[in-house]
């Protein structure tokens, strides 16, 4: 297929069209809305594959097509489409996973009254996400970024009649907004300095050499290079959207949305947008690397945030009881891994992990959705159990996802991408802390996934809902099987023996450390996975006679630590106590100011108005009204007098005519006119 950057707009346009159709479809048109959404996704997938073929023909070339969007005074704002392997791989992933999740939703949302609205929102999300991927302009990217946030808000709050869902939607929107503010400031600054937001524009784009040299060569307050400052501001957006510490608090709450939404948006695609953004502006983040006398390099901050997030997410996931919350914190942790890989200089490893993670995390979430659907919306691990015997397909695919996420060696995709990240961290000359954090998170990941899978599928059913669960229809298990196949097979696109993905993604084979150069590290991480799985099995796998109210073994061993982790390290409470309270104070202050200062001023004005109204009334009633009354009386009298001339008597009129005739005749006879 001959596909170029000029045609890229069609990829987001298809789901947008489906969203338009969905928005116009009445509630009864379920087949139309869902059919349009799924057909659009499949169409977009085919187009994305075409784009991938084109991009892989010249992996190192950034194909772009720019055009003028609008003119404001003398400023011509130009946007465009960008086609490179990064865009193409991401688009293929989003459309493929998206199409499967759309199909899964057919089964999951079957009983929902607002089925058509759901598919309309899903399509809107897909359109915005794909628009974000193909944008060659940071402005267009920002527009789609916000649209993605809107779609996320709408879908988290899809069951808005639940107060928790409405609150979670609001929280997600506001928390990501804090990051977006940084992103917006970064973009404004960049536009102010460079006069354009196009990424690639024949040498004039912000990510091209001329711009980067200028940005790295300028120093701003605090000794930072300008590129560092702008890069960190842009990274703020990524922190918010990708659930990085300290703005990770919204992501677990976002699980109040329907499970397919969690799979698509809050595991596979949207939260990866932050990683994608950093990878997109990677030349900008790299620009300060050569400078020696700056306080901090942009990528060092990225690596630090990523490392903290990876460990934090994995630790909190150990103590959660809600299936989706365990997976949510796991997502936070894995996103931290990706940021860590970006920070230590291997964006290729980050994107590799992003793509693999998208498949197996979507698989895990859809598996969780299958369990939740079968168990009548029971999400608490303590109240499930024993589902493995009755839900064999879900159990098998969930197990594949678990092993991919835990990084079980050789067969599973997650192993290869995780190894790529760890080896990139090992090769980082600045600090070995990210590597240690990454290794610690490996143990924790294997441990909490073992806890989760044994809790759901093994043992005896602990409630009636779990006891009555049965396998779902093929429309739900089909996507699970396809994703499980991907979770196994796709890893082989990026093994060190055949690094096809890596070499195509970057255009050149990345000069990070090859896995063969540090075989000890690989053995160590395999050993850690085994330790994690083994400990998990020892603690949870052989428990007998447990019921829904049994205390978790970890809670028995270390109640304090477990409680702290279960409370998510108190971040929410901390934010409520600090920012929330500060906000309340500011609001109270503003309220007082409003009430007393502005309010006083306003009531003073009102008094003045009242007084002048009084004056006005006096003038009106005593002066104007009386005058008018008199004039009216005079007019009425005159009217009565003259009305006698028009009494309706024909003879009266005729007499007037005769009188006029006589007068005219006299005037003529006496020569008055002549």
């Amino acid at each position, binding site marked *: 297929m001959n596909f170029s950057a000029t045609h890229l707009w069609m990829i987001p346009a298809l789901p947008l069209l489906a969203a338009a159709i969905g928005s116009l479809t009445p509630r009864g048109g379920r087949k139309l809305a869902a059919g349009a959404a799924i057909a659009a996704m499949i169409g977009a997938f085919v187009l994305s594959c075409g784009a991938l073929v084109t991009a892989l023909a010249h992996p190192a070339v950034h194909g772009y097509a720019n055009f003028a969007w609008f003119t404001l005074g003398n400023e011509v704002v130009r946007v465009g489409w960008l086609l490179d392997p990064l865009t193409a791989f991401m688009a293929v992933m989003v459309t493929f996973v998206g199409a499967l999740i759309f199909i899964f939703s057919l089964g999951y949302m079957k009983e929902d009254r607002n089925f058509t609205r759901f598919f309309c929102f899903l399509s809107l999300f897909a359109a915005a996400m794909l628009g974000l991927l193909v944008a060659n302009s940071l402005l267009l990217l920002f527009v789609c970024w916000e649209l993605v946030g809107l779609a996320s808000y709408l879908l988290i709050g899809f069951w808005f009649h639940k107060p928790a869902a409405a609150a979670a939607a609001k929280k997600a929107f506001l928390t990501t907004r804090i990051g977006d503010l940084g992103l917006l400031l970064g973009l404004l600054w960049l536009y102010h300095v460079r006069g354009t937001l196009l990424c690639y524009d024949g040498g004039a784009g912000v990510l091209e050499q001329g711009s980067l040299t200028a940005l790295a060569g300028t120093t701003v307050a605090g000794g930072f290079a300008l590129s560092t400052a702008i890069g960190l501001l842009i990274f703020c957006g990524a922190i918010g959207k990708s659930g990085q510490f300290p703005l990770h608090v919204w992501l677990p709450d976002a699980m109040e949305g329907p499970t397919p939404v969690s799979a698509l948006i809050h595991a596979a695609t949207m939260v990866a947008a932050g990683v994608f953004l950093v990878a997109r502006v990677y030349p900008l983040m790299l620009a300060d690397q050569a400078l020696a006398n700056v306080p901090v390099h942009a990528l060092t901050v990225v690596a630090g945030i990523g490392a903290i997030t990876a460990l934090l997410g994995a630790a909190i996931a150990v103590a959660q009881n809600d299936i989706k919350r365990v997976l949510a914190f796991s997502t936070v942790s894995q996103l931290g891994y990706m940021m860590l890989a970006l920070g230590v200089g291997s964006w290729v490893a980050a994107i590799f992990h992003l793509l693999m993670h998208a498949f197996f995390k979507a698989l895990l979430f859809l598996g969780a959705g299958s369990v939740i659907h079968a168990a009548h919306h029971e999400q608490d691990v303590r109240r499930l159990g024993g589902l493995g015997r009755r839900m064999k397909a879900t159990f098998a695919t969930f197990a594949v996802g678990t092993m991919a996420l835990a990084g079980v060696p050789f067969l599973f995709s997650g192993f290869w991408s995780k190894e790529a990240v760890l080896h990139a961290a090992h090769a980082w000359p600045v600090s070995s802390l990210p590597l240690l954090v990454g290794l610690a998170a490996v143990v924790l990941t294997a441990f909490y996934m073992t806890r989760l899978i044994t809790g759901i599928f093994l043992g005896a059913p602990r409630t009636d809902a779990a006891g009555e669960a049965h396998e779902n229809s093929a429309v739900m298990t089909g996507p699970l099987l396809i994703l499980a196949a991907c979770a196994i097979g796709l890893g082989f696109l990026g093994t060190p023996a055949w690094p096809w993905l890596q070499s195509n993604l970057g255009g050149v084979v990345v000069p990070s450390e090859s896995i063969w150069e540090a075989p000890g590290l690989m053995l160590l991480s395999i050993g850690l996975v085994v330790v994690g799985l083994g400990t998990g099995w020892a603690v949870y796998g052989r428990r007998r006679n447990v019921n829904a109210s049994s205390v978790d073994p970890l809670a028995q061993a270390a109640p304090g630590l477990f409680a702290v982790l279960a409370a998510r390290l108190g971040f929410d409470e901390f934010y409520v106590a600090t920012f929330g309270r500060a906000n309340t104070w500011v609001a109270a202050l503003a309220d007082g100011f409003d009430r007393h200062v502005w309010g006083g001023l306003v009531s003073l004005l009102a008094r003045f108005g009242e007084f002048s109204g009084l004056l006005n009334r006096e003038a009106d009633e005593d002066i104007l009204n009386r005058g008018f009354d008199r004039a009216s009386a005079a007019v009425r009298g005159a009217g009565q007098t003259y009305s006698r001339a028009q*009494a*309706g*008597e*024909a*003879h009266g009129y*005729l*007499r007037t005519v*005769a009188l006029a*005739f006589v007068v005219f005749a006299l005037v003529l006879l006496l020569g008055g006119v002549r």
Partner: protein
Amino acid sequence: MSPLQGCLLLSAALFSVGLVIALARSNAILVLLGIELMLNAANLNFIAFWRFHGGTAPATGVIFVLFAIAVAAAEAAVGLALVIALYRHQKNLRLQEATRLRG
């Protein structure tokens, strides 16, 4: 006495007769009749001035009169329709009683 003066005197007499009829009679039909007489007096003046006062265009006076007759005919039609409506309403034709515009 020139022919023009004779015509004007005749026309004046005709007008006076019409005026007296219109003013003195109370029957609506007779009042209309008087008005027609006055109109015809005016028409006679047109013809007389055209004939004896050396009009250069051959047909001006006649055309004028023809228009006046056409308008008078239309007016008579409207007037007679009013007369009939008046009769239906008050069962006589006395103009003194036809003073109300409604009812």
